[in-house]
C-alpha cells in the first residue's frame, strides 16, 4: 500500500534538549497507527512536528510524495489535509460550540454557512454534543470540551487525523462510542495517527503500534505482536508495568 | 539661589522678598539666560537667570521697596493663579491691564506703552504697506484672546484667519505661507524681524485704533494690595526717556540679538 506520510530521520531539539532523535516511520493510506510510550517520551512533539506546529530540527516529512519541509511548500495547503485533536483541546474561546466547528470550514474550505453548520451538527451529534451548540468553551466539562475538539477536527473532513490522547477526558462509555466512530472513519479510508495511554484502546483500534521511548521509536509492529511478544527490553518493561496494573 | 524652591517661601507682605512672576520667554520683555550677563537675576529654584525689560523694571521696584528681588518662572496661564494664591507678590511679565483682567487682579500704573505693528514676509506683497487698509484681502491673524485679534476687523476686506494659540505658531504659519501677516507689538516685531531674515515688520502711519488699556503694560497685583501705591510711586520716578533707554538696551541685549 502507498504511504501517505513518510517520516525520515526526523529530529527535534528544544535548545540543548533533544526531544526527538532520528525518527523513521511511515503511515499508509487508511492505516491506523497508535503511538504509545511513557510521559515525556516525545509523542505529542512528534504529532506536532507532523503538522509543522513545531519546526523539526532535521529530517524529512514526505506527504503524497513531496517533502513538505522543502521551503517551496505551502504549509497551510498541506495542513488542510490533516486534522488535529490537541491534548489540551484548545477550543476557540471566542466561539461557541457550533462556531468552533464551523469557522474553519467556512474560512479554509470556503463552505457556505448552511453546509458548514450541517456538517458540524453531524459530527457534534456523533460525539453527543449537538445539544450544546450555544455553549461557550468555558461552560463545558472536560469531556465535553474534548468531544467538541474531536468534532471540530472531523468537520474539516481531512485525509489524515492526528489525535493526541483523544479519550483522556472521556468516560469509558464515551471512549467506546468514540472508538466506534473512529473505526467507521477508518473504514472510509481515513488515515489516523493516535497517541494514547489506553492500551486496550490501542489494541482494539490500531493496525500498527509504535512504542516511543526517550525520543526514539523503540519498537513498532502490529498490535498483537507488540503487546504479546515485544522484542525490546524497554517495551517489555513498559508493558509489564502497564498490564499487570 | 535666594530660597530653596519657588513654592516654599512664604510670600506675604511682611517678608523681605519681592517675588515676581514671569514666563522668562517673552523677549525682549523677559527672557532666560545661562549666566548673569547684563545684570541678569537668578531664577528661583532654577539654575538659570532672567533678563529683559520687565526684569530691569522689577529691579527698580524691589530696590524702591527695599526688598530682595526673587524671580519665579511660571507659564503665562499660571501667573494670575500664582498671584492670587500668594505664591508671588506681583506679575511683571509684559501684561496689559485690560478691563477683563482687572476683574480678578489690580494693576499698577503703566510702565510701557507700545504700538501695534504687522509682521510680514520680507519681499512679499505687503512689505511696503503704510496703512492698515493696505492689507485689504490679506490673510491676517493674531494671538488668541488678545486685543491684537479684535482690531483686525478694522481692516476693510481683510481675510481674518482663525486666531492662533501662540506666537511660535503664527511665525510658523507666516513662514509657510498659510497667512500673510500677524498683528503684533513693536518690541516683538523688532525682535522677530531681527531674528528671522525672512520676516520684516510693518509700522503704520495710519494704524489701528486702540485703547490705552490694551497697548500699555503694567504690574499685576493682588486685589487691594498695599503694594500698589508704593509701586506706582516708584514707577512715577522712572522717566519716559529712561524707559525707552531700558527697552532699547533690552532689545539689544536679548539673546536673539547676539
Amino acid at each position: 500500500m502507498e504511504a501517505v506520510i513518510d517520516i525520515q530521520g526526523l529530529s527535534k531539539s528544544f535548545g540543548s534538549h533533544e526531544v526527538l532523535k532520528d525518527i523513521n516511520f511511515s503511515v499508509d493510506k487508511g492505516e491506523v497507527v497508535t503511538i504509545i510510550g511513557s510521559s515525556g517520551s516525545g509523542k505529542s512533539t512528534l504529532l506536532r512536528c507532523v503538522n509543522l506546529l513545531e519546526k523539526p530540527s532535521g529530517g524529512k516529512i514526505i506527504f503524497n510524495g513531496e517533502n513538505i519541509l522543502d521551503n517551496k511548500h505551502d504549509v497551510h495547503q498541506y495542513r488542510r489535509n490533516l486534522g488535529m485533536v490537541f491534548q489540551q483541546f484548545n477550543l476557540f474561546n471566542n466561539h461557541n460550540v457550533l462556531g468552533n466547528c464551523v469557522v474553519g470550514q467556512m474560512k479554509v474550505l470556503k463552505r457556505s454557512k448552511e453546509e458548514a453548520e450541517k456538517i458540524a451538527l453531524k459530527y457534534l451529534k456523533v460525539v453527543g454534543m449537538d445539544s450544546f451548540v450555544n455553549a461557550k468553551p468555558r461552560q463545558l466539562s472536560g469531556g465535553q470540551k474534548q468531544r467538541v475538539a474531536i468534532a471540530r477536527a472531523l468537520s474539516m473532513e481531512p485525509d489524515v487525523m492526528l489525535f493526541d490522547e483523544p479519550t483522556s477526558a472521556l468516560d469509558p462509555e464515551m471512549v467506546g462510542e468514540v472508538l466506534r466512530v473512529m473505526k467507521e472513519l477508518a473504514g472510509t479510508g481515513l488515515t489516523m495517527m493516535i497517541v494514547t495511554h489506553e492500551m486496550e484502546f490501542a489494541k482494539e483500534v490500531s493496525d500498527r503500534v509504535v512504542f516511543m521511548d526517550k525520543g526514539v521509536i523503540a519498537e513498532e509492529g502490529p498490535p498483537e505482536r507488540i503487546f504479546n511478544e515485544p522484542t525490546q527490553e524497554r517495551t517489555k518493561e513498559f508493558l509489564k508495568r502497564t498490564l499487570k496494573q | 539661589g535666594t530660597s530653596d524652591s519657588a513654592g516654599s517661601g512664604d510670600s506675604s507682605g511682611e517678608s523681605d522678598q519681592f517675588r515676581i512672576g514671569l514666563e522668562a520667554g517673552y523677549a525682549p520683555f523677559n527672557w532666560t539666560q545661562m549666566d548673569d550677563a547684563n545684570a541678569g537675576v537668578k531664577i528661583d529654584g532654577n539654575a538659570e537667570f532672567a533678563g529683559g525689560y520687565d526684569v530691569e523694571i522689577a529691579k527698580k521696584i524691589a530696590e524702591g521697596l527695599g526688598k530682595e528681588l526673587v524671580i519665579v518662572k511660571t507659564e503665562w496661564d499660571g501667573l494670575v493663579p500664582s498671584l492670587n494664591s500668594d505664591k508671588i507678590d506681583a506679575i511683571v511679565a509684559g501684561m496689559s491691564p485690560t478691563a477683563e483682567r482687572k476683574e480678578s487682579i489690580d494693576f499698577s500704573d503703566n510702565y510701557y506703552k507700545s504700538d501695534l505693528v504687522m509682521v510680514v514676509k520680507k519681499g512679499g506683497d505687503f512689505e511696503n504697506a503704510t496703512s492698515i487698509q493696505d492689507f485689504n484681502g490679506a490673510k491676517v491673524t493674531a494671538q488668541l484672546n488678545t486685543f491684537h485679534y479684535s482690531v483686525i476687523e478694522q481692516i476693510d476686506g481683510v481675510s481674518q484667519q482663525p486666531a492662533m494659540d501662540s506666537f511660535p505658531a503664527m511665525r510658523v504659519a507666516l513662514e509657510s505661507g498659510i497667512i500673510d501677516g500677524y498683528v503684533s507689538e513693536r518690541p516683538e516685531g523688532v525682535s522677530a524681524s531681527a531674528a528671522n531674515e525672512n520676516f520684516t515688520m510693518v509700522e503704520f502711519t495710519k494704524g489701528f485704533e486702540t485703547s490705552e488699556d490694551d497697548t500699555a503694560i503694567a504690574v499685576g497685583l493682588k486685589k487691594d494690595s498695599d503694594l500698589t501705591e508704593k509701586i506706582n510711586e516708584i514707577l512715577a520716578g522712572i522717566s519716559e526717556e529712561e524707559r525707552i533707554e531700558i527697552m532699547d538696551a533690552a532689545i539689544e541685549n536679548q539673546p536673539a540679538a547676539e
Partner: protein
Amino acid sequence: MTLEWIFRIVEQYWPMFLRGAGVTLLIALIGTVLGGLIGLLAGIVRTIPTPERGLKKIGLKLINIVLSIYIEFFRGTPMIVQAMVIFYGAALAFGYHMNPIIAGVVIVSINTGAYMAEIVRGGIISVDKGQYEASQAIGMNHIQTMMNVVLPQVIRNILPATGNQFIINIKDTAVLSVISISELFFVTKTIAGNNYRYFEAFFVVCILYFIMTYTITLILRYVERRLDGPDNYVIAANPMDTAEDIKRKTQGM
C-alpha cells in the same frame, strides 16, 4: 468663580461649546477607530512567522523595521509638532493646503495607531498560544487565524486600554488648535478670553470633557458585557441530556 457667570457663559455660548465638542468628539472618535485598526494591522504584521525563504524574509524584516520606526517615531515626538510639520510642512514644501479637520483626523489616527500597536502587542502576548496553534492546525493561514480567532480575543482584552486611548485623544485634540481647528479646548479659551472668566469657562469645559469621557466609559463597559456574552447557555434540545441519552437518540445515525 460664580454660578451666575457659569450660567451666563453657557447660555450665551452653548452653540460654540457644542460645535467645539462636536469637532473634538469627531476627531477623537475617528482617530481612535482608525488608530485601533492601524494597531490591529500592526499586530497582524508583527506576528507573521518568519518565513524561511530569503526574499520574503528580507521583505518581512524590512516591513517590521518600518513598523518599528513608525511606532517609535510617532510615540516619541509630541503630537503638536507632528501636526505642525504635516500641516505647515505640506503647505511649505508642496504648496498643498490641507483641510485642517482632515489633517487633524490623519494626525490623531497615525498617532493613536502607534500607541495601539503596542497595546495590541500586549494583548496578543496574553492570548493562549494554543488558540493560535489550533487555528493553524485546521489550515488557517496567518491572517485568517488572527482575524477569526486571535484578534477577537485581543480586542476584548484591550478594550479598557482602548477606552484610555479614546479619552486621551479627546483631551489631546486640544493641541490641534495649532493648525486652526476650533476644537473644544480652543473654543473654551476663546470664550474665556472674551469674558476673562477663565475659571467659569474652564469649569464648563471640564464638565463637557467629563460628560464625553464618561459616556465613552459607559458605552465601552456595555460593549464589554456584550462581548462576554451571557454567563448561561441555552441547551438546544432537552436540558440535561448527557451522553447516553444522545447516544440512544443518535444510535440510528
